[in-house]
């Protein structure tokens, strides 16, 4: 043994060391346990040195590295600052261009969809004066702009042209203290007058305290002012306290939200219905219209569907007259000659007057013999002719013929048309002034110079109290079969 150990001493030591390590590995693998002591020693010996090396590296090489990095930072910072400024300017420019494009597109869409003829204009300056709310736009008389024309945006009305110059126009904004316009509420149909206040909000005046309006309710133009066509949005109610006599309704103009830059000047206005009109509940139930009223024509022939109301039937009459005379309503500038309504051959059951111009009231005399009822004529809704007691005042040209079968009431309402010009020469279809000027013609009678008077024919024409009509509102013409014996009085 000693010989073996002395002869193979190195090999023996090697085998012992290898065997010891093999046993160590076998123990770890067999028991899945580590030898923490050796690892702790090694880690404790190595990691502090490693930490020191890292600190040294950080404060030597890292510092040098940072120094060389920072050498170019100043120039790079200046360069980035310049680029940032240029990008900001470019960004603002692009935002402005985008906003302008959006507004222009909105105007274009609105212009295409609106029945009114408009011209786009850009606000180029403000007027002088601390309280005046006027602006200059870049469209003038050479573009067809005239004083008194409405100025709108797709969001609502903006103002009206007060002066038109060749290349520019002065527009009074609706916030100007001297501005006024007729408005009507969307839901409750409350009429009022919009007045500027010199600040952001406008006041709707002349609304009785008894009238009901809701906060947030929209006001639309009513067309009463003959400047703004009916149906353009004005704004929402922000406050509506009761005043001494009238409500103090404050409206936030919708057309001036966020400032105005591009506007539309209404060259030829066309009335529109108030969009999405919600009729307020009257507080009492209303029965449905009788079947014969809703379905029969003046001749008694039922026409279901298209002509459902008397207004529609009367509208058809005027439309036919316009077609016969090759006249299109709503076209042509103010002052265009209207169709000759005195040449309407027949108003659907109303026979033409006699050639001698005999008063139709006289013709109505035999009506009872035919079992029919004569139809008195109302020139204005709500103003039933008081001439029931004044048969002798019947004018030859203002007579109403008794229809052969006047048993069916007809209430016709003309299509809303552009506001009549001041001289009443607009081409509105039911110009009662024209009818009154021609004796012996058709029985459509109304007050002269009253625009778009709808004709109401029927026994259920509303009474005066239920149809108060302002002087500028469409005036219906009424004919009552039950008043056939009464001489029609169209004296207005």
């Amino acid at each position: 043994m000693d010989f073996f150990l002395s002869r193979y001493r190195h090999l023996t030591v090697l085998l012992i060391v290898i065997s010891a390590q093999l046993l160590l590995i076998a123990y770890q693998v067999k028991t899945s346990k580590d030898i923490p002591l050796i690892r702790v020693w090694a880690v404790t010996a190595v990691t502090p040195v490693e930490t020191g090396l890292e600190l040294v590296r950080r404060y030597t090489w890292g510092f040098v590295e940072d120094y060389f990095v920072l050498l170019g930072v100043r120039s790079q910072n200046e360069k980035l600052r310049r680029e940032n400024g240029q990008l900001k300017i470019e960004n603002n420019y692009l935002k402005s261009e985008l906003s302008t494009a959006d507004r222009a597109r909105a105007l274009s869409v609105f212009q295409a969809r609106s029945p009114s003829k408009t011209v786009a204009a850009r606000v180029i300056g403000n007027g002088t004066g601390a309280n005046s709310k006027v602006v200059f736009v870049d469209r003038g008389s050479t573009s067809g702009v005239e004083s008194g024309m409405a100025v709108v945006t797709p969001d609502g009305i903006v103002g009206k042209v007060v002066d038109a110059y060749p290349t520019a126009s002065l527009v009074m904004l609706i916030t100007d203290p001297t501005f006024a316009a007729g408005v009507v509420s969307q839901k409750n149909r409350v009429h009022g007058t919009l007045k500027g206040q010199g600040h952001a909000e406008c006041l709707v005046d002349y609304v009785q305290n008894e009238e009901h309006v809701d906060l947030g309710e929209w006001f639309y133009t009513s067309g009463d002012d003959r400047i703004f066509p009916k149906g353009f949005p004005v704004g929402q109610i922000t406050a509506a306290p009761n005043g001494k006599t009238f409500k103090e309704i404050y409206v936030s103009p919708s057309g001036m939200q966020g400032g105005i830059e591009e506007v539309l000047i209404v060259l030829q206005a066309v009335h529109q219905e108030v969009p999405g009109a919600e009729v307020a509940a009257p507080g009492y139930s209303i029965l449905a219209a009788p079947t014969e009223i809703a379905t029969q024509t003046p001749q008694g022939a039922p026409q279901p569907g298209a002509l459902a109301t008397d207004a529609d039937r009367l509208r058809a009459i005027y439309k036919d007259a316009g077609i016969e005379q090759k006249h299109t309503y709503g076209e042509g500038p103010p002052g265009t000659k209207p169709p000759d309504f005195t040449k309407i051959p027949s108003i659907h059951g109303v026979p033409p007057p006699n050639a001698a111009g005999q008063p139709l009231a006289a013709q109505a005399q035999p009506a009872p013999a035919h079992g029919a009822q004569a139809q008195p004529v109302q020139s204005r809704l709500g103003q039933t002719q008081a001439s029931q007691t004044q048969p002798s005042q019947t004018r030859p040209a203002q007579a109403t013929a008794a229809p052969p079968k006047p048993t069916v009431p007809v209430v016709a309402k003309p299509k809303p048309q552009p506001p009549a010009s001041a001289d009443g020469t607009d081409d509105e279809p039911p110009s009662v002034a024209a009818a009154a000027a021609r004796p012996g013609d058709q029985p459509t009678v109304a007050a002269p110079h009253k625009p778009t008077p709808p004709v109401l024919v029927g026994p259920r024409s509303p009474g005066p109290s239920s149809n108060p009509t302002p002087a500028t509102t469409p005036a219906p013409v009424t004919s009552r079969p039950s008043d056939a014996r009464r001489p029609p009085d169209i004296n207005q």
Partner: protein
Amino acid sequence: MTEYTERILTEGPRKDAADRLRLVWLVVIPLIAVLSQVYVPRFIPFLAYLELPLLITVHFALSRGGPIPALFYGMFIGLVQDSLSHQPIGMYGIVKTLVGYFAGSVSMRFDVQNPLVTFILGFFFYFFHQFFYWVLSRALLGETLAFDAQQTLIFGLLNAAVALPLFRVLDKLRVAS
């Protein structure tokens, strides 16, 4: 037999130089080698191939001139390496023990100061180290490591190339100390 080969075979180990290695260097140099293997690849990943603890073991074995001290030195460095790895302790210990033993045995036969012998020994022991570690991993731990002989040969050449200046520097340090 030429004079050169005769000198290689007859000069023997440099026992006088090895004796002058101090204990401090015996501890610090392997520690630096292990640290460099752990720390340097973090910043220079390419240097992960450099097996400095192995080269230190080989240099110690060649310069010490005896297999017994060399095998213990190799075992020490190997166990330190094992302690900083996720493998069971003893894998690198066994491999470096064998490397130290064989390097110490070789040093008694060749002139290890000859650069060519140093290069060949460096290459051989690197290949032996990697191959034996792979065998032990498969045999003892059941791991299925891949052994890329071509890559191992290339890395062996690189380690042998590094060994030439490294051994020169370590010899200078030893003489200076």
